[in-house]
């Protein structure tokens, strides 16, 4: 689905990503982990074509991503960005309806309205649907932004730290929604800091360190004592409690 080959991304002459070759397996939930500044957001925005590539290539269904028209890419790939500087004075429903724009150019049909209402319900936003975003808490606002990305119904969904600011209930909601997306046949990549969540929810894990691929594969292969201790340069233990893998960082 998405293949990254020998990718390098540079800012002001400094390479932020180097020699990066990896792929997001089709129809799987891929967790992306790694320390702050490892290049996770840069990788995601490069895949979403929001960050220019220095060298190498990113293929979407075999086509270089730069060759696909912006408008048609938006129908097939949706991206949730880590930081959105602007809090527009729009209702939650208004914002989520923007997710349909690539498909409708602003003229939604009944089917589109249904998708919008489903996105609202799936992220527990029904009681806020008509509230303005600037009257909501950070976590509620973030769920609204996620709702917009869901409503975009891309075949590939890229989520950059969607669980930040969320309480445990809503973090679970988002992981459940990510799994539902997989069941609908979509490919999802999700940047996570909570390694236990990565271990228990993801089908595939990509670990980045210092702008390079550190390791990738099944969670039980990547998220090990040695692997994680090396990735984060600090001692990490992996335990198993009632059949669930728990990453101990204390």
């Amino acid at each position: 689905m998405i293949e990254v080959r020998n990718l390098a991304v540079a800012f002001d002459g400094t390479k932020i990503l180097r020699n990066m070759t990896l792929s997001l397996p089709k129809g799987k939930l891929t967790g992306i982990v790694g320390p702050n500044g490892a290049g996770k957001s840069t990788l995601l925005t490069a895949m979403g074509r929001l960050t220019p590539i220095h060298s190498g290539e990113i293929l979407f269904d075999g086509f270089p991503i730069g060759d696909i028209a912006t408008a048609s890419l938006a129908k097939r790939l949706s991206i949730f960005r880590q930081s959105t500087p602007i809090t527009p004075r729009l209702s939650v429903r208004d914002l989520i309806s923007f997710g349909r724009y690539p498909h409708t150019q602003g003229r939604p049909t009944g089917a589109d309205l249904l998708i919008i209402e489903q996105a609202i319900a799936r992220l527990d936003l029904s009681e806020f649907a008509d509230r303005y975003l600037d009257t909501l808490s950070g976590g509620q606002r973030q769920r609204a932004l996620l709702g917009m990305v869901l409503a975009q119904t891309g075949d590939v969904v890229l989520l950059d730290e969607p669980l930040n600011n969320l309480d445990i209930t809503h973090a679970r909601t988002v992981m459940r929604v990510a799994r539902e997306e997989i069941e609908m046949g979509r490919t999802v990549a999700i940047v996570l800091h909570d390694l236990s969540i990565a271990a228990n929810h993801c089908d595939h894990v990509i670990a980045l360190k210092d702008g390079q691929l550190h390791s990738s594969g099944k969670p039980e292969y990547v998220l090990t004592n040695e692997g994680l201790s090396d990735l984060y340069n600090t001692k990490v233990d992996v335990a198993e409690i009632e059949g669930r893998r728990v990453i101990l960082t204390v």
Partner: protein
Amino acid sequence: MGGHVMDNLSLPSRLAVLATLAVFALLAFMTLESRGNWGFVLPFRGIKALALITFATSVALSTMVFQTLTANRILTPSIMGFDALYILIQTSLVFTIGGVGYASIDPVMKFTVESVFMTAAALALFGMVLRGVHDIGRMVLTGLILGVLFRSITSLINRLIDPSEFSVIQQANFASFNAVNVELTWITFVLTAACFVWLMSIHKRLDIMALGRDAAKGLGVDYERETKKLLAVIALLVSSSTALIGPVYFYGLLIAALSHKLIGTWRHQYLLPASCIIGAGLLIASQTLFERVLSLQTSVAVVIEAIGGITFLLLLFTRKTR
């Protein structure tokens, strides 16, 4: 946004209330102090009302679109030096072809040439400047410097111009709501109306561009290309308002602040018409008050600018810049 009389009204009703008030202002403007001379008064006042509406609409639309592009509530084309740029182009034209030649060109032709230059210059200059837009402080400073720069070049050229030709420009350098050119009124009206129709037809896309470059690109909007188109429209609108009435520095900001206050939402479907109605209604009401009631011909521009200037400071100091 605290409690407000409009808070309980739906968005279409708010537009209807504003439009009703504007129509009352227009009726007062057309009929007060007419002394029964209807045959003379109505066409004369009619064309003046059309000029005021056109001017206010261009200022309102250029400001709202500019604020969408820059994702803030405090920058306006005037504050960024657009009006000053137009006057510089006008002055350069007088300098190149001479005051007599300039005065003899058909006003429509003159306007066309000036707005073509204006659009090209705005795209070249501001396309570049807008990339630094996330830093409001830097943008305000850039606008200030560009404005001063354009105005000093203008006054330098003025000094080089033959004093007899100078009066041609003098008229153009100040906002004047009194003498309006009929032909120019019609052409700027048609242009402004066309811009309004086009902007309303892309209101959803404008909503999305207001989310910023990355979000807009993520939703499939070719942000760079659309920005260029919108900058060109802003340049045309500023050309219209400046050629018709003259430069105003803070009126756009006043209109934008009032529109946001009264409409609340960022949806351009409501924000754009509201800004036009508010801009035109307020201008016509002030003109009626000063000209007909208080018999003060010249103070309108001064008062409106002063209120706009205070709004600018208030927004700056209360940090309601986004």
